[in-house]
């Protein structure tokens, strides 16, 4: 229940943040990396750093993360197949993997795991469609439903919570 509430809160904050639709969409697209790929990996630390440093919507990134976690679980067999195809069934790539595997720091990303590599490749491919699709959807929302939601009671309740103060620290400038 709490997770659901937080999800709704994230959704509302993201959609009504001061950020442009592009910032919100970029946040969602970056957050999707956290959800689609196994969480405890080096590349996700980099993605998290980018979410914080880049002027994208932080709530949108959290929303993207939460939304794409179940998608990641569901698509694990697909990621595994992609990863296996790239790691094992494409001999032309073997020299590249061998070189990366023996390069400092790179193995810490666990790129040589089929699910990590498959999900990372999938996330990279899905990044631009997510960004452009998200930007369009947020713009449409704000132009149609946004103002009515902003005037509602429960919106005010959501934005009045303590978490909102934390959010303000990371809101887009």
């Amino acid at each position, binding site marked *: 229940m709490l997770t659901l509430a937080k999800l709704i809160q994230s959704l509302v904050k993201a959609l009504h943040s001061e950020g442009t639709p592009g910032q919100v969409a970029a946040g969602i697209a970056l957050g999707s990396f956290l959800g689609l790929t196994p969480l405890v990996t080096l590349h996700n630390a980099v993605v998290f750093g980018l979410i914080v440093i*880049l*002027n994208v919507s932080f709530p949108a990134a959290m929303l993207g993360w939460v939304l794409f976690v179940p998608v990641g679980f569901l698509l*694990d067999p697909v990621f595994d197949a992609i990863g296996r195809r790239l790691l*094992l069934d494409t001999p032309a790539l073997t020299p590249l993997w061998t070189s990366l595997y023996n390069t400092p720091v790179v193995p810490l990303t666990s790129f040589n795991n089929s699910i990590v590599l498959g999900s990372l490749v999938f996330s990279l491919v899905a990044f631009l469609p997510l960004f452009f699709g998200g930007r369009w959807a947020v713009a449409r929302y704000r132009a149609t439903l946004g103002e009515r939601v902003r005037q509602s009671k429960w919106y005010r309740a959501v934005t009045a919570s303590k978490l909102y103060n934390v959010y303000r620290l990371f809101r887009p400038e």
Partner: protein
Amino acid sequence: MSVRVFRWRAVGPLLVFAALGMVAWVLFGDRIARRSAEKIGTAIVGAKVEIKSLHLSLADGDVTIRGLTVASPHEALENLLEADELVADVDVLPLLEKKVVIDRLAANGLRFGTPRQTDGRTAGRSDGIAARVMTEAQAWSRQFQVPALQLATGKIDVGTLDPRNLSAIPAAEALTARTDSSRRAWQAGLDSLQLGPAVDSAAATLARLRTARATDLAALASARRAIDQLKRARDRVAALERRVTGGLASLRAGAAGLDSAKQRDYAVAKGLLKLPALDAPEIGAALFAPTAVRKFERALYWARLGRHYMPPGLLPRADAGPPRARGRGTTVRFPREHALPGFLLRTAELSFRLDGTAPQAKHYTGRLTGLTSDPALYGRPTLFEASAPAVAAGAMLDHVRATPRDTAGASLQGVRLPAIALPSLPLRLEPREGTVQLGFALRGDTIRARWAVRSSRVRWERDSGATGTPVSDVVWRVVSGISDLSVDAGVTGTIARPRLVVRSNLDEAIAARLRAMLGDEVATAERRLRAEVDRQVDPKVAPARAKVAALQTEVTARLAEQRARLDQAQKDLEARLRELTRIRVP
């Protein structure tokens, strides 16, 4: 409206976040490393690995482990080893490549085979490599047909002998069929010889010659043609004779094979009735083979596990990924020539105790070098050696080349030997102090292993709660007075087809005693068995043999007759020709 790309004011919180991460690592790094080490060790060994404390000092490259316990993957309440302290000198830079290179490891206070409170085995409960290797090793050990030392009690029921289990009956039926088929083939061969025209032509020519003169050249030429015709006919007979001779030899061999099949049937019947083995080697196998096979199975388990984690060659290697909430996937390693292996322990100095229960525990030292996950990269085999007065142990895992070679040997003198349970008998053998030797060599798939135990102070213990059977009584009476023990077990052959031989000084003693006590009963049972086998087999075997004999007589006679006709016709013609062409002096 222009949007700035960076959110600089978030750098502060990010740095704070990173600092918190560092603090968390300082606070919990050791715990995380300990849990990881336990998890990885457990997955590798196939049994629980527990660590009391682990201290990681990345700055100095030191790792100190205290209170290491590795449960046995084979015994429920036994540890494989315990170690008081392990201090490792780790190269830090390879860690950036996710590679662990330990320059030197000092392991102190190693003890083997210590008892534990809980079952530490995990191989049976997981689907990992260790579980698979364990299953393979267990399947391998089940190949050995260890005879049971037991007596058939009560009335021996020969009615249970199923004719379908007797090999002589189908062999006799097959021989009969082959005989019939050969008869038809040879009959056809005899018919196709067509000797009649040749013999008739020779007879007609002979009749002409009788009235011919020496100057009748046409008659002489006709006679020579008839002789040639006879010779060709005889060649055909000879060819058929050769086929028949070969065929008859094969049929005779088949008939002789019926005897072997019958002998096998006797053995099958004997096995069905569970008659006690009275041959000395079988008694040795019945008593000690299970223990010996368990030793060999364990050695094979470790060797196969070593081969999995230390494979030869430099090709990419795929394994299941790490366990996590998400799917494990497949983790592929890409070793490269001249690069560091994924894991390398250059040198380990081991200090261990054997016979921890002894009042004055003896301390030994050993040395392990070149333990690596990529032997082809390291280029040298893994070596282990330990020597001390009365102890010699060594092992070499050579996975550098395509065909891996694993050898290990140990000889321990004057140490307390574990008790040996004798299967199907309520007896326990306590070898007490003695000598034990274990040799194991696995080259590719060829195995050669040996386990030997010598003791001159054995003690026998009888399970007071168990009901004594005739055999156990006999064995008890025989062995309870024996204080010397010498057991020698060996396995040779390939993994797929191993051969087990077990000998002991008890074999002949027990066999002689059993023969004396049970010989009459067993002999009677065996006679009845043989009679039953004969009753079922002979009605099929005797006609088959008779058919072979009859066919041989018949075909041989017919061929001889045909050959005689040809010979006689040729002889007559040649005699007449000689008469006509003889030069007569007026």
